[in-house]
């Protein structure tokens, strides 16, 4: 039997002890003493969230594929456990061996969203690893960050030894080899970091210096170590079928957010929505082959026993072999009590037909993401979804028996006018009218339309990276205007409108486009008790504002300021594939309301073609 780090009295006094015991189906079991390198992968959020993340599962499986590495996991202890670990003076431990995190060679922390940054500090703190990289000794693990937020790592720069920029499947092997080589020749931590700096895609923040102009903008950003390159180019998998994928995903004992097999059908997106960071940083679109997906779908269903399989991608309808894949899966799961879930499908005749086969029409709802209320604004953001397509899709769905519709919007995008805002209510009303215009015998009795709006947060490596963000007050003014417009609609009783928390979006804006001067604010907010900020009920804006005050940092500098196109941005040292020239062109076209065709309609010259694969070469094959 495996030993546990915690005794029964502790485990039986917290919510969900299963978060801390490991032992799940398909867990990697190795003798920690017999491996050269011990790696612990951290997802800085609750177990139930972290266990649902595909990327962690891929890396976990891939690292454990090496005989000389034992990769384990750790998640953020919830408040009850956080308190007990501190009271009882127990260091944070990894789930597999239950060994203290501090005893590992590497601590890899995935950065999936900005609001987890205080949880990053919690993991370091509870592990008793110095928060600042500069204070770490030869005995401390190398702390490495990755994931989408690593595309602007600067607000976290002091806390990490290394950032991995891009997709994790490519250069970790080189990093482990370098670590082993350095260890065997008795090299120091610094020598190892210098070796790491020579590996493509790796950024060692301590090897760069930043200076600032009197107006607060960046004057200069340059390496202070000859091993560190001027530019760090993102890593990516060129041919998806060659990349590591999981045959035996972990199966948690308790219900987690994503309690199903996740089949990644493709990576990247052809659409080019101008607000979307994922659509830009994962360029170019790369598909898996049909045969590959069939093989993995069968293997993963068998090895997990999950009752559901979900296709994962940014826009599943764009997968070129989708009908064949769905036919295969329908056939495969027949009589086995397995559901197929198809998120991110464009609503059209094909998808409605498929959905009617895999779900209970009466119970399920349709989702549209118009993102903006008017065609004008949809052109600005390059969202290629027209009102006609939405209403036609809705009509077909209503005729097919659906009666619940979800509509997703964003408020506060560049150039937004009051007409655009009101358009959110108008469009929702038109969907309701489409329903009631149908003869009563051809549809359900009532329609329920739920429109939700989030607040726009400009992100690095998007054409909107220069955009001014709204203040909290302005966000709320817009949301209230939309809310009031909804109340004026004829079918108001069939419509519901929700909006997100404004102050959370403002803070996310600071962290997304922040620089190194934001780091002390994160640390101060953590010291003042900020934790699990992404969980609305735990978020305390006053605590954060007090932290900004205490550090003398003005959040407005990062959010509501107009940025000059020539300004040096904190993330400019990263080459994400999409060129700055392309982003500038797109920003200009946005302000003119000009759309850019998607990658399959015509190449917009974004720069990602240099990687030598994916959609850029589709018709050349």
């Amino acid at each position, binding site marked *: 039997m495996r*030993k546990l780090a915690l005794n029964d009295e502790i485990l039986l006094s917290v919510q969900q002890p299963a978060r801390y015991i490991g032992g799940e189906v398909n867990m990697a079991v190795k003798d920690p003493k017999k491996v050269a390198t011990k790696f612990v992968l951290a997802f800085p959020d609750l177990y139930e969230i972290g266990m649902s993340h595909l990327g962690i599962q891929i890396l976990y499986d891939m690292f454990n594929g090496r005989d000389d590495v034992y990769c384990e996991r750790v998640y953020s202890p919830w408040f009850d456990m956080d308190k007990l670990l501190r009271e009882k003076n127990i260091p944070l431990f990894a789930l597999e061996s239950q060994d203290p995190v501090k005893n590992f060679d590497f601590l890899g922390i995935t950065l999936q969203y900005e609001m987890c940054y205080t949880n990053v500090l919690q993991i370091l703190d509870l592990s008793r690893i110095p928060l600042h990289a500069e204070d770490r000794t030869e005995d401390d693990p190398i702390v490495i960050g990755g994931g989408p937020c690593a595309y602007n790592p600067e607000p976290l720069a002091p806390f990490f030894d290394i950032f991995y920029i891009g997709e994790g499947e490519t250069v970790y092997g080189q990093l482990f080899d370098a670590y082993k080589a350095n260890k065997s020749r008795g090299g120091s931590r610094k020598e190892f970091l210098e070796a790491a700096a020579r590996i493509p895609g790796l950024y060692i923040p301590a090897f760069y210096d930043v200076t600032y102009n009197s107006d607060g903008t960046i004057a200069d950003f340059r390496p202070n170590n000859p091993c560190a390159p001027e530019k760090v180019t993102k890593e990516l998998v060129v041919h998806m079928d060659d990349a590591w994928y999981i045959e035996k995903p972990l199966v948690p004992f308790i219900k987690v957010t994503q309690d199903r097999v996740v089949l990644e059908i493709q990576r990247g997106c052809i659409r080019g929505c101008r607000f979307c960071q994922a659509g830009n940083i994962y360029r170019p679109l790369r598909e898996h082959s049909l045969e590959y997906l069939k093989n993995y779908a069968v293997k993963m269903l068998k090895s997990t026993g999950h009752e559901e399989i979900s296709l994962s991608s940014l826009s599943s309808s764009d997968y070129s072999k989708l009908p064949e894949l769905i036919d295969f899966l329908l056939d495969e799961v027949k009589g086995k009590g397995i559901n197929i879930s198809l998120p991110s499908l464009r609503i059209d005749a094909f998808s409605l037909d498929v959905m009617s086969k895999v779900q209970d029409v009466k119970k399920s709802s349709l989702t549209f993401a118009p993102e903006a209320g008017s065609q004008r604004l949809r052109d600005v953001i390059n969202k290629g979804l027209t009102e006609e397509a939405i209403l036609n899709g809705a009509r077909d769905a209503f005729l097919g028996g659906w009666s619940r519709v979800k509509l997703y919007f964003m408020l506060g995008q560049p150039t937004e006018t009051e007409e655009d805002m009101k358009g959110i209510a108008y469009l929702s009303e038109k969907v309701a009218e489409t329903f009631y215009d149908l003869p009563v015998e051809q549809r359900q009795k009532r329609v329920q339309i739920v429109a939700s709006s989030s607040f726009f947060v400009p992100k690095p490596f998007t054409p909107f990276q220069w955009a001014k963000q709204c203040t909290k007050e302005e966000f709320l003014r817009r949301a209230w205007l939309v809310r009031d417009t909804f109340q004026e609609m004829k079918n108001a009783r069939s419509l519901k409108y929700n909006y997100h928390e404004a102050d959370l979006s403002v803070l996310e804006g600071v962290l997304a486009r922040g620089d190194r001067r934001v780091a002390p604010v994160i640390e101060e907010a953590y010291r003042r008790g900020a934790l699990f900020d992404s969980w609305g009920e735990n978020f305390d804006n006053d605590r954060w504002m007090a932290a900004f005050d205490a550090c003398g940092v003005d959040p407005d500098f990062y959010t509501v300021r107009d940025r000059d196109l020539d300004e040096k941005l904190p993330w400019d040292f990263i080459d994400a594939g999409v060129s700055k020239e392309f982003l500038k062109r797109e920003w200009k076209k946005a302000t003119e309301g000009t759309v850019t065709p998607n990658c399959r309609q015509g190449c917009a010259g974004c720069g990602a073609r240099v990687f030598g694969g994916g959609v850029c070469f589709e018709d050349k094959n």
Partner: protein
Amino acid sequence: MKIRIKFRKQGIMKFIGHLDIMRYFQKAMRRADVDICYSGGFSPHQIMSFAAPLGVGLLSNGEYLDIEVNSAESSAEMVRRLNAVMSEGMEVLSYRRLDDSAKSAMSLVAAADYVLAFRPGKEPEDIEAFFAALSEFYAQPQIPVMKKTKSGEKEMDLRPLIYRMERVWAVPDEERPAAVSDCVGVSERPSPLAAATGPVRIVPGMTAPSGKELPVIVSGAVNEPSDAVFLQVCTGSTDNVKPELVMNALYDFMGLELAPFTFQAEREEVYADLGGSGEGSRNLVPLETLGEDIE
């Protein structure tokens, strides 16, 4: 075809609650390619039911679930296949066919055996006095206790619901002191803490080989396993007696307060009652004996 499965729930699995154990077995059926029957409709579910939920924190050597299958290979093969997909701590012990007319395990549950072992460091100072008090407690004609109900508390007599209550010896027969060996009925069951499945203790202030001062984790029963309490109690939907209710009553009787985490409880077996000849007489049989091995 109706099937009854018996399994053990040991080690870390004691932290997994009943609903999650149900989900665990649903997935395990698919991993083991059990040809299980599904209900109809858009969200089909497996035909599966459990005998008696086991509380979080309890170990077990005798849990039961019933399923329905379209086809099955031999019991030995099905046990092998299920055990090949179990996680550490879960073990399938038997897979037996039931009559088509057989009642579900859930509706049959009548009694269960438990062994309650003192956790290391929680043993009574005078163990002989403890077991003497236990004998007296069990010898009472009535044991009134307050039981929590939906509408407050009501008094009930616990005594008729306790079928057996005995001392379990941690040491072999020949090493026992002669003077006490003929007190109330004696079981030969090993204490659950005698196996290396016990809890883990943290010993502060120890030094790791690297010279770093760290809390070092040592496993399990560092103390000698001590004698334990064996209980057979009425179980099921009408009068479900949890071992902790009996132990609380015992400590009340002794004029002591039962501190939490004094015992590690383990369920050993769950029974159906085939009924005896006289009024109130019982004929308890383990649930698995109602099925037959598939050759």
